[in-house]
């Protein structure tokens, strides 16, 4: 087990290096630069700015400076947000993004599993129809639209929750954004769980269990749930990555202090340092989540080996 994890971690290093290098150079190939805005800067100012951020050096030299700093944990300066370094911005925003994503993940997964299981057990009965319909709503309504609807209904008309913003420690501010994130995740989980559960309930060993006279509850708990979880678990990895990295729309609409929105805005602003920093961070999150999923998968399915 330990060897397996070590090997996986070590194999991530070249992946990380390739990703950083590719991102660094592709970003520089894109037309425009961090100081191209609506107004032309006087050449003096532009030269001063470029010198300030080492952009006047040959590209390859800039690359080595960047990687050298990175190895020391220094993500360098942001070229647009002058009052913070990239590392500071990421460390301030990351806990929020993680908290938002994990909360939505835990709630969404539980809701999805329970809903999927109930649907499967009541296949083609009323609870099934109702749940399938709700799941479809969660899946097909795009998150920016869902966010706007929730803001209007629960923020403006009913005035139950704040329509946006964030105050540290305030649960009320989290309700609407978490709901927007939970709906599609719970929907996908429920659909997978329903399908896989129906399949498992139709297998021979479940029939055998029934023939032995086992009660429904015992059959579900002992024999059906664990195998039914397998396809769901393989979705949970990408699902978690998606929640952690895909919260940018929600962060933008609800004006939340996470890192998701830097991903887009920094790329558009050509804020080289911040784009790279965000990408690297996300890369680590995804690598870590994938590793975690593989371990869980191996634990659930004895056919998977660590070697």
């Amino acid at each position, binding site marked *: 087990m330990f060897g397996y994890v070590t090997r996986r971690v070590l194999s991530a290093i070249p992946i990380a290096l390739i990703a950083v290098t590719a991102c660094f150079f592709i970003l520089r190939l*894109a*037309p*425009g*630069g*961090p*100081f*191209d*805005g*609506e*107004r*032309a*800067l*006087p*050449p*003096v*100012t532009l030269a*001063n*700015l470029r*010198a*300030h951020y080492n952009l006047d050096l040959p590209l390859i030299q800039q690359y080595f400076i960047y990687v050298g700093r990175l190895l020391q944990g220094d993500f360098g300066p942001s070229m*647009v*947000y*002058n*009052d*913070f370094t990239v590392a500071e*911005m990421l460390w*301030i*925003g990351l806990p929020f993004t993680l908290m938002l994503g994990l909360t939505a993940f835990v709630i969404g997964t539980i809701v999805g599993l329970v809903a999927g299981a109930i649907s499967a057990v009541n296949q083609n009965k009323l609870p099934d129809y109702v749940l399938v319909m709700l799941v479809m709503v969660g899946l097909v309504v795009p998150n920016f639209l869902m*966010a*706007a609807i929730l*803001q*209007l209904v629960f*923020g*403006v008309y009913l*005035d139950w929750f*704040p*329509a*946006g*913003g*964030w105050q*540290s420690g305030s649960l009320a501010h989290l309700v609407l954004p978490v709901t927007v994130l939970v709906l599609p995740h719970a929907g996908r989980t429920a659909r997978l769980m329903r399908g896989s559960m129906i399949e498992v309930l139709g297998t021979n060993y479940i029939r055998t269990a029934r023939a032995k006279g086992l009660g429904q509850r015992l059959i579900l708990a002992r024999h059906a749930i664990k195998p039914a979880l397998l396809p769901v678990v393989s979705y949970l990895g990408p699902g978690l990555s998606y929640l952690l990295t895909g919260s940018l729309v929600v*962060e*933008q*609409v*609800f*004006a*939340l*202090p*996470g890192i998701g*929105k830097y991903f887009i*805005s920094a790329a*558009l*602003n*050509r804020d080289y340092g911040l784009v790279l920093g965000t990408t690297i961070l996300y890369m680590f999150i995804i690598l870590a989540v994938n590793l975690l999923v593989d371990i869980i998968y191996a634990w659930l399915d004895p056919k998977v080996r660590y070697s």
Partner: protein
Amino acid sequence: MTQTLKAVTTAGAIALLMSSAASAVTLNMMNGSEPGSIDPHQASGDWENRIIGDYIEGLMAEDADANAIPGQAESYTVSDDGLVYTFKLRDGIQWSDGTPVTAGDFVFAFQRLFNPATASDYAYLQFPIKNGSEIAEGTVTDFNELGVKAIDDKTVEITLEGPTPFFLQALTHYTAYPVPKHVIDAVGDDWTKIENIVGNGPYTPTEWVPGSYIKSVKSETYWDAANVQIDEVNYFVQDDLAAALSRYRAGEYDILTDIPSDQAEWIKTNLPGQDYFAPFLGVYYYVINQEKPPFENADVRKALSMAINRDVIGPDVLGTGEVPAYGWVPPGTANYEGVEPYQPEWIGLSYEERVAEAKAIMEGLGYTAETPLTLQLKYNTNDNHQRIAVAITSMWEQIGVKAELFNSETAVHYDSLRAGDFEVGRAGWLLDYSDPSNTLDLLRQPIEQDGTMNWGNNYGRYSSDEFEALVDQATTEQDLAARAKMLGDAEKIAMDATAAIPIYWYIAQNVVSPKVTGFVSNAADIHRTRWLAKSE
């Protein structure tokens, strides 16, 4: 007994807390983007200006109408030749940590602004100051050569390169604000970190959650604190405008500084009296690349301009009611008294007549519906820019012009405008200070540098010696009326030649809660919190 006593004290404490909380007046402002910096030498956006102008005050400040009034300076004198301004500082002015504000802070600030190591985006706004540009360029390295001197602790003397009629207005810009030398000496560029920051203005930032908000509280050390009514201001980061409006309706914001433009009508109807939509100093325009045929032909440019029905763009295409623009200097610009707003000679024609004339011009050049002039119209990706481009494309179709639309993100768009890699392109300009030269400078001839021509913001590469001579002459003219006339003549020359196609004057789109009083629409769209009050 003890129990009762405890309960009573607790209740008392709670009541006290509640009463003090209730009496603190908090203004919640939707402020747009995340501030790039609240260091006045690093900032570049109006959302940063709102925060900075509340926490630092320059020699000159803005009143509720955004006119220049004495700020940290109590009074000033100007030498007869218009070159030397002497400012007397107020007594007892302090930074928020109690350190006195001295003339030395201003000298230090201007030296820091021009220092090439600071790499300040907007330092050029203060280039009228003697040796400012030379220091920024590095040709003068002795900062003592800068035309800003401390005569004593209370007196600042500023010497200019030439007489500059808008200089007092320029001093209200944040690039002219003082910075706390004692803090910067101690912590360097980290002085804007929330734990270090001090200001000399009506408010002091106390909390900064990146991506969420900045909170500033009233400064008791501000010289006019007795007249400042709002106790706390929250400047909220909010990029999504539809969500901003929802939050305003939910009572979470008192002021919206921008709106989704398709909601303008809805706001006027459903939030009567809360819409503060008013023209401010800015022009939305199309540039035409005059180095590419056939656009070097002024008649082609004129026909393109005539065929645009500006009357429908503000009210119908955008729905916000932007005012049609035909000239280059926005109405309400200071130092332009006595100049009639520019009107093209065809202004008297109806739209149908204009189209007919434009069509005739194009036909004369061989462009008809069958053999149209094809051009590429570039704009930066944005719903409004797209709507306008689509509308104008169909207007041009009537005169034998077939425009292909091309959009790209802002950085790429302006990169190609600057490189001259376009035929017709969308641009906009918001004035940095209220003076006609601030827009006329957009049409000036290039500066030669290291063998290449730098066209700056003159994307269309308009070039007229006559225009250039008048604008040049105006820079040294001290008589404001004579100067205004020269600039007015220059505007006429450029616009008669359709140097660019002005489309509309920008509209400030503020929405202000009825609880807030003291908010005045003004041409600069600057509304310092010290002039506002809020009732619960």
